[in-house]
């Protein structure tokens, strides 16, 4: 197996990264005849899009799992390198198509770092509001999809989408589109939110906790859910850190790393919120991280909606069209609902970014998929994958 190669190449150095657990699951020659090779995906009800896993099964047990990517490789980076800085924003919407607002933010943050742009205060608040609404709907949706993968005939997903629709209505009212908001701009946001919008948002934020409660009543104590998720897809802490896993998945292993706290980008240092931490790093922890973060998001939303000042929403000095940052490079990152979303930009002084790179949390969180799945059943693979929270638009870009 490939891992052995690596060991040879680097001389079995202890300091090297923890590798696949494959060694202990090596296929015995005598078992070969029982190995069933299946590919799960690319068209499969629970691979969340066009993901594919080439799985080798021994009975029901996974002995090898190779993720295959690229079925949604849309050349985002190439296209962005051929377009202007502004033109890339609507494309970022389509990266993680569930969270266009946070994607916008990640990109604008990188451009702002690159070109030294400041953002007016009100715009910062609006960004936080949008990002947290996005986080909420993403997490709700994820829990729904996860339960769907467990075969819950769609009920939790329906409830999640019921709430999501309300949030999308807000997005649409302010940005004009439900999913592809294209709302943030470097130096601010595109349009201001009206007072009515603020009022509606406040009302919605007021009822969101009820939805979380409903979710918890429906699911949290469910024995089947617990039995199917606890101890499944366990991710050891060291491996998680070494493999660059970020977001709720990392925090489920107990590592306290939330970029909102670490980088304090935007104005996140003004809000009081807690970072929930898991302990076991299994699917249940990951699920609970999302639920708890939903509650924290609500709390951030409440604060932001209370404190938001009046003022302009766009830095007037910033040139949106025809921006030409000085030659140089910048890496900007945010805590997207899925993990660290980073944008790496190299400018050569022209109107197009010379290099545009998306550090996608989904792709990197998938690095350890095989490690989490070895020795488990196919059903667990599906659930584990579901708990990683991937969106193929971002994995393949």
């Amino acid at each position, binding site marked *: 197996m490939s891992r052995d190669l690596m060991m040879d190449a680097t001389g079995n150095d202890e300091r090297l990264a923890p590798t696949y657990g494959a060694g202990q699951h090596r296929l015995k020659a005598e078992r070969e005849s029982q190995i069933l090779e299946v590919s*799960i995906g690319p068209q499969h009800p*629970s691979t969340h899009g066009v993901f594919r896993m080439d799985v080798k099964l021994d009975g029901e047990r996974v002995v090898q799992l190779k993720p295959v990517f690229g079925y949604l490789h849309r050349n985002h980076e190439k296209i962005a390198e051929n377009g202007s800085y502004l033109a890339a924003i609507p494309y970022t919407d389509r990266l993680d198509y569930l969270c266009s607002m946070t994607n916008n933010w990640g990109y604008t943050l990188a451009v702002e770092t690159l070109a030294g742009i400041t953002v007016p205060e009100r715009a910062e608040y609006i960004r936080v509001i949008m990002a947290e609404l996005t986080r909420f709907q993403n997490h709700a949706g994820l829990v729904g999809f996860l339960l769907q993968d*467990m*075969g*819950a*005939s769609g009920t939790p997903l329906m409830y999640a989408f019921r709430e999501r629709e309300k949030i999308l209505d807000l997005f649409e009212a302010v940005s004009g589109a439900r999913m592809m908001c294209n709302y943030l701009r470097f130096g601010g946001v595109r349009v201001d939110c009206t007072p009515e919008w603020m009022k509606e948002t406040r009302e919605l934020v007021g009822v969101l906790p009820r939805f979380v409660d409903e979710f918890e009543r429906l699911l949290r104590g469910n024995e089947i859910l617990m039995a199917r998720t*606890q101890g499944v897809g366990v991710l050891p802490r060291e491996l998680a850190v070494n493999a660059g896993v970020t977001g709720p998945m990392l925090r489920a292993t107990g590592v306290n790393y939330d970029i909102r706290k670490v980088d304090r980008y935007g104005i996140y240092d003004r809000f009081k919120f807690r970072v*929930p*931490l898991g302990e076991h790093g299994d699917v249940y*922890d990951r699920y609970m991280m999302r639920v708890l973060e939903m509650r924290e998001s609500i709390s951030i939303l409440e604060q932001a909606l209370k404190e938001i000042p009046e003022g302009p929403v766009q830095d007037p000095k910033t040139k949106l069209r025809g921006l030409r940052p000085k030659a140089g490079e910048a890496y900007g990152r945010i805590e997207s609902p899925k993990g660290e979303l980073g944008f790496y930009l190299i400018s050569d002084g022209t109107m197009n970014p010379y290099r545009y790179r998306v550090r996608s949390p989904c792709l990197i969180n998938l690095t350890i998929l095989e490690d989490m799945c070895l020795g488990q059943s196919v059903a667990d693979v599906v659930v584990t994958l579901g708990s990683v929270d991937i969106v193929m638009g971002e994995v393949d870009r």
Partner: protein
Amino acid sequence: MNVSFTMAGGLAERVDQIFVTLDHWAVAHTPGPLQWLVQILLIVVPILAVFPGLFALTTVLERKGLGRIQNRYGPNRVGPYGLLQPVADGLKALTKEDLVPRTADGVVHYLAPLVIVVTAFLVYAVLPVGRNMTAVHLNAGLLFFFAIGSATELAVFMAGWSSRNKYSLLGAMRAIAQMISYEVPLILSTIAVIMIAGTLAPEKIVLAQASYTGIFPHWYVFTPWGFAGFLLFMTAAAAETNRSPFDLPEGESEIIAGYIVEYSGFKFALFFLAEYLEIFAVSGLGITLFLGGWSAPLSFLAVIPSWIWFFAKLMVMICTFIWVRGTLPRLRMDQLMNFAWKFMLPMALVDMVCAGVWRFLPGGALWSVLRWVICTVIVVVPYVALARGLQMGKKVEQRVYRYAEEG
């Protein structure tokens, strides 16, 4: 005929027996040599008409019910209230191209849906759907039910194997493993009833429950062993018929659609039909064994015809199935098997013992209370123990989460 029946009065009796009377009338009015034919037709045709009809109704009901659970309407445009939806589905299935994979085993592939439908229909022969309304009176009716029902596993195997598709075969193996595992508790949980009723004939079991104390019926479900047996039976029935949360063989999130992956057109519809027919049949059996079959729940309600009661109870069961399906996620294979062998089977055995104890404890005022208590203990203690044992070593628990300290 029956104690409670006398108070129902003549008209009620006539309505109750309307089908029986019609049957006799029709038979009496046919020429002698043909009588047997008419007699048989009058039994077979209603079964072939009513239950598929019920199937059609149930599919809409299920889709609408799930819709309501999920805050939406469900099918409501095809015909009044969407009631014609199954007709459209059926027409579509009928005119759909029938695909058989090239490498598949054609004959077996063709036979599998037939076998499964035939077995599903056959078991109705012994189901009493109303007073004097059992198609075939067999002394060993229950055994017939299980014997015929066991052919389903074979049909599933045929379907999965002949498709020569990995998912189907995997699905079929799962399905068979699941069905055989749950068949044991299914049969064993009926034994308690048989022990008390002393017969294998379903209609006699119903009759054994069709008396009342005051207005309350003597259904077996109202005894400790009966209650436990009922739950066991229905759980096993859900698993046996691949209903949620035991719908692994079709667990689409892992193995697409299980053993029916390669079936299209009406063959697929037949699988669908058979699945529902099995659900009705096994629910009907559950009703017969534990819920007093066609007897009314309260003595004065006996004026309502018995077959209405049967179908009303059936509807309740179906609705419960839908409800459960709308709520629960699916179990995993190992959990499913563990549950069958480590919980259901021991519980079924305990339940048998409990029924035995129930029978041998003497009657009398004080004793009947004591009997209740003893039997409840006999059932509850193993329940708790086994439920605990199920999670032993797995540490399945509600967790408390900590937060990073502010920093």
